[in-house]
């Protein structure tokens, strides 16, 4: 449901333009980089899957303005659900004897497994979202974090079903650069359509001024819930793909906590307020992380081998993040989208919101 009824092809084109440009960039990058070497193709896949997760997070945080630390829970839930549905029954009998009979025997197609993961995450988001969306600000952030801890502790210790900190192996590995690219494009499309729908605009109004938005009759809780569920679905897509890209799942060493903070950092460094910012942030941090990883292995510069001391790449990554945030606290793109019209597009026209509210 676009905010303005798009009629002429030109208008539709302009509506989709920023999205189309980013998708084009991703397609070109994916095909050129992944043809270089298998190692490069893994990096591309990894980055694209993270982009799916960040997009999921962005759908909620970018539109509602509430910082969620809870989306890691959806990654966990969907990854394990998809694993239960798709690991061959012969293997399940050996590695997960604690599973109930139904899950022991079921063996689904990867696509159905993915859907199963997403459905479970959506149901969870609905159940937890209904009470939590009443909260705002820091209370909401802490509550989502508490929700993440509850889910992560359960999966960590529920060893009969999840193997906990040991590895759950045997997931069919089907995710390569192309699958990840497809998922990233779908995720971006969902985010863009939601952001530009009247629901997205109304939700952005509650982000700017909750009291005024409520006074204009905008049902803030219901819109937040909608965004929360949608963003859980997209994040869950990323979570399930992550499992089928690595071929194994584990909860050891706080992987999901670190992963959630990585994707939050990507979102905030790029700028929480725009789709373009989020894409730029994800690509930038992935690039920087990769450069430092290479430096730690050692590279040749003019005949000299340059090697960073072990472990220092995280220090440098943190430093770059801080530098970006200090120099551009609004995010790398300062909350703007790509714009192709000659006149400067207003950040978010008040008239648009009023129109959408009617």
């Amino acid at each position, binding site marked *: 449901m676009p905010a303005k009824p798009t009629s002429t092809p030109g208008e539709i084109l302009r509506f989709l333009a920023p999205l189309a440009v980013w998708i084009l960039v991703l397609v070109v990058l994916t095909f050129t980089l992944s043809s270089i070497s298998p190692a490069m193709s893994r990096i591309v896949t990894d980055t694209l899957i993270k982009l799916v997760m960040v997009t999921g997070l962005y759908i909620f945080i970018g539109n509602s303005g509430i910082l969620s630390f809870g989306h890691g829970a959806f990654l966990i839930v969907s990854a394990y659900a998809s694993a239960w549905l798709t690991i061959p029954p012969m293997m399940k009998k050996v590695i997960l004897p604690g599973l109930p009979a139904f899950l022991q025997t079921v063996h689904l197609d990867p696509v159905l497994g993915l859907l199963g993961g997403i459905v479970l995450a959506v149901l969870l988001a609905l159940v937890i979202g209904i009470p939590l969306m009443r909260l705002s600000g*820091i209370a909401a952030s802490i509550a989502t974090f508490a929700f993440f801890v509850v889910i992560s502790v359960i999966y960590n210790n529920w060893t009969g079903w999840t193997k906990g900190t040991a590895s759950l192996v045997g997931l069919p590995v089907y995710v390569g650069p192309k699958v990840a690219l497809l998922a990233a494009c779908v995720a971006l499309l969902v985010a863009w359509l939601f952001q530009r729908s009247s629901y997205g605009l109304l939700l952005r109004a509650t982000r700017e001024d909750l009291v005024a938005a409520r006074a204009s009759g905008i049902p803030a809780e219901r819109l937040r819930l909608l965004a929360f569920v949608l963003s859980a679905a997209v994040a869950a897509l990323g979570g399930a793909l992550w499992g089928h890209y690595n071929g194994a799942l584990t909860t050891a060493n706080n992987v999901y906590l670190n992963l959630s903070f990585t994707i939050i950092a990507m979102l905030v460094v790029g700028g929480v307020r725009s789709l373009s910012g989020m894409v730029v942030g994800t690509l930038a941090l992935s690039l920087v992380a990769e450069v430092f990883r290479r430096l730690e292995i050692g590279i040749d510069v003019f005949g000299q081998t340059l090697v960073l001391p072990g472990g220092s790449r995280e220090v440098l990554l943190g430093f770059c993040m801080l530098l970006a945030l200090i120099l551009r*606290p609004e995010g790398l793109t300062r909350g703007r989208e790509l714009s192709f019209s000659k006149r400067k597009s207003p950040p978010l026209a008040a008239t648009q919101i009023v129109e959408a509210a009617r």
Partner: protein
Amino acid sequence: MNALQMLIDAASVGGLYALTALGLGLIFGVIGLVNFAYGEYIMVGAYVLLLTAGVHWPFAILAVLIFVILFALASDWLVFRQVRRAQPETLMIVSFGLSFMIQHLYVVLFGSLTRTVNFLPEINRSIEIGGLRVAGVSILQIAATIILTTALALVINYTKIGYQMRAVSENPRMARLVGVNSNRIVAAAFAISAVLAVTVTVLFVAQTGSMTPFFGVSLTMIGFVATVIGGLGSLPGCALGGFLVGALTTLLQMMLPSHLQPFREAFVFAAVIIVLLVRPQGLIAVRSAWERV
């Protein structure tokens, strides 16, 4: 008698959490920053204790105190002051980035494995009081909490710097207009929170004798949760929240059947969600901490 024993355990664990929560709550109250790097104030102090092992204990503590206060002031000066006007979520991520960077700096310097130090082993000895066996460190924890909370309340309510701190917290712009040097007041708040962090470090290291570059994280998370339950911006609330989380943890440790023990943390955090749903403003609400219309 058993109940009394439990009460002392709850109070000593809760005291440690309350001190952590107070340090976090103070900074939040004054500049609205949720300081994830607070755990690193606790962590770097522990490594100073490691390096000064063998030094007579008052000097070791003095060294920690000086280093951590300087460290906290530097973090404010170099990082947080640069982004003072940014959105709260940006501030939160800045502090997280700083905490991440320092943790990994310490991994490079000291390795990621657990290091141990034998600091003040005497205070772990148990004392008999009226038939109860109580570890000396528990008593110290309870005493330190009571003394520091009282001292902090006195400073905030009755000293010039306390008045100015409340002014900056209430309305930073107005405070500047009437001549408050807000940068100095914020620095003072960071220094006080560093003192609280040092207390936590000393008690924690004396009790466990071990440290890793990541041990500050779980304490910060618990302190963070305690601050929100208690009521952000309210110092008595922070202390109360810390005690409640500590008491709940101890209680669950004793009451839960053994097969549910690993899930203890899940119960604690589920309780946190329930408290937030019932009282989103925290147990002790502060008007100025919440957005006015």
